[in-house]
């Protein structure tokens, strides 16, 4: 069976296709979260008092720490993509590796927050605010996990010498995805933790 080989026949077309593909995919991700943001809006309008009271129970300090952690990781992705464009594979792997490390920190903090809530008897079924909190942060957490997988795969590609200054499409595309994950959190943090 001969494998159709046109996929990367023309690197320029391959890059453009990948870029359009990833942006389209990110649009679908926006809509995936969009339904949850809609639910947030609906219920916040319906029960403003309850939302005000319940959001006090979230730990702002941990939320802020996680915000800083994710923004830093996004910055490292930018440095990483820039490094591979200049052909510096080692630096690229270090930057992406650090990003994965920070993603791990994020998840640990999230784990601490979740267990604290469970400890106080707060579950997704407690009330609508925490339904939304757990669904939104849970879905986001799954995206963080997926992102760690994707970034690891790209590092693996680099270690095998598949990335270079002339071919860095996977690095740039996975970077776009990570920025999206970061961006969603930047919306979640104020909506859930800060707005009273």
């Amino acid at each position, binding site marked *: 069976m001969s494998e159709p080989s046109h*996929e990367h026949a023309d690197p320029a077309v391959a890059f*453009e296709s990948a870029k359009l*593909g990833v942006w*389209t995919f990110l649009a679908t991700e926006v809509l995936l979260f969009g*339904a949850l943001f809609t*639910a947030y809006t609906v219920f916040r309008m*319906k029960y403003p008092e309850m939302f005000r009271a319940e959001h006090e129970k979230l730990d702002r300090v941990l939320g802020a720490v996680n915000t800083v952690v994710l923004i830093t990781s996004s910055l490292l992705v930018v440095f990483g993509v820039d490094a591979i464009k200049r052909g510096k594979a080692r630096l690229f792997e270090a930057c992406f590796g650090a990003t994965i490390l920070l993603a791990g920190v994020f998840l640990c903090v999230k784990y601490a927050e979740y267990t604290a809530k469970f400890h106080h008897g707060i579950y997704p079924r407690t*009330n609508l605010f925490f339904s939304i909190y757990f669904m939104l942060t849970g*879905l986001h957490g799954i995206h963080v996990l997926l992102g760690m997988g994707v970034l690891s795969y790209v590092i693996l590609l680099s270690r095998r010498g598949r990335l270079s200054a002339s071919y860095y499409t996977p690095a740039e595309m996975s970077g776009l995805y990570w920025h999206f994950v970061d961006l969603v959190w930047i919306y979640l943090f104020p909506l859930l933790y800060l707005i009273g």
Partner: protein
Amino acid sequence: MTGVGRPEAEGNGRGYLADRGWRSWAFTLDHKRIGAMYLWTTTVFFLIGGVFALLLRLELLSPQARYFSNHAYNVFFTLHGAMMIFLFVIPAIPSGLGNFLIPLHIGARDVAFPRLNLASYWVFAAGFLVIIGSLVAPMDTGWTFYTPYSAKSAAAVTTLSLGIFLIGMSSILTGLNFIVTIHKLRAPGMTWHRLPLFIWGMYATSIIQVVATPVVGVTFLLLAAERIFGVGFFDPTKGGDPVLFQHFFWFYSHPVVYVMILPAMGIVSEVIPVFSRKPIFGYKAIAYSSMAIAFIGFLVWGHHMFTSGMSPLANKIFSFLTFFVAVPTAVKVFNWIATLYRGSITFESPMLYALTFIFLFIVGGLTGPFLGAMATNVQLHDTYFVVAHFHYTMMGGTVMGFFAGLHYWFPKMTGKMVNEKVARAAWALIFVGFNVTFFTMFIAGTRGMPRRYAEYLPKFQVENTISSIGSAVLAAGILVMCWNFLQGLRKGAAAPANPWRALSLEWKAASPPETENFHEIPVVTEWPYGYGTPKA
């Protein structure tokens, strides 16, 4: 310049069907094979869904529940609806025929992401395996899964939700792949205004798939979370709102009826000019109306909820907007009729189905305003009028378009011809059976027969008996058609490369096409509808 510049032509002159063995199918990256796998899979689901329909019609022969329990009846109509919608009408044309044809139509060697294409088939397959797994506790909620019942039902709603989520993911990946393919891999000279109209239909379809499907995906996740973790988004006892579920559900499920119908309209736009030997009338109007339908389709979901308790203002706005979808739809129909006008028409089987599409779709379309207008909707809501209306549009539209496409491209896909006489006989049975089955439902519906009940008042007995007889004729027609296809596949006459003398690119490839479609990527110099000119 896209898709060219490869020094060596990879095409080995062997048809894409030449390789044998299950591995050559399961791991193929060839869009034609993946399309064929989708066609087989979805057709099997069509037949299974059809069997459930026949069971329903059997039960409705008598006013009392005679053959099955009420619960069994609920399970049958749920499975009929869910299978037909999620496993047949949504994927059949886009993923089956679309996969097969898009690269051929635009002069590419494959889709933009062949591996993703294969992955989306296997995600689809995983989805239907999960759905089959959910049959341990069969669904009885109807295909719409309305809360609060679906959050409480003892059936395997969680499993089925997961299955539909997977099928949705597959649909998103396919749509994404097609959008990128159509944007980036067109042959030199294939400008947007030279694209075949099937491609325009598929492009609009892909946009809907990509934009609408994530919303239904997360809706089913929320439904599952409601059952597993007890979150209360849709549960009024926890402050949630069941109508919110309906909003989310229809934000997807209304646009998705255009995922079902736009590709079929594309097929009709291909078939009509070929068998009228005339250039298509109003090419740009047909192309842009696809985009308009896709856009307006996102604004009208509320017309499914007139009786659900929205605000009167919302009802009025949705009713008003709903009527707008009729405009681009009518633009298409008038253009097809204008194409037929003074054409040199021949009635081969693809053309018969295409004309049937137009006829049945007009009936379905003209009964739409009764449901889109609030006053009559309140009267007709959840009666057999609704059932008749959506079968005329979905089955009379999508399925007839699909049959037209199958007959039209069968020689290209298989390299064989079907027996034309048998094909026409099957068509006659299908046409008569369809109208007998579903037209009577309009009458039963206006007289007040509600849908989704195993038992009904004796005054509806006549309509139901006629309708059940019609369904048997319809089923016979479909069986004859399937038999004819299988016969054609086994011992049909060898097909020439271009049996219908059509002008679009796929007919320039061999029948069946070789693995990489074209020996040399063609250079396109004109639009594909120049029939009736000296050259054609």
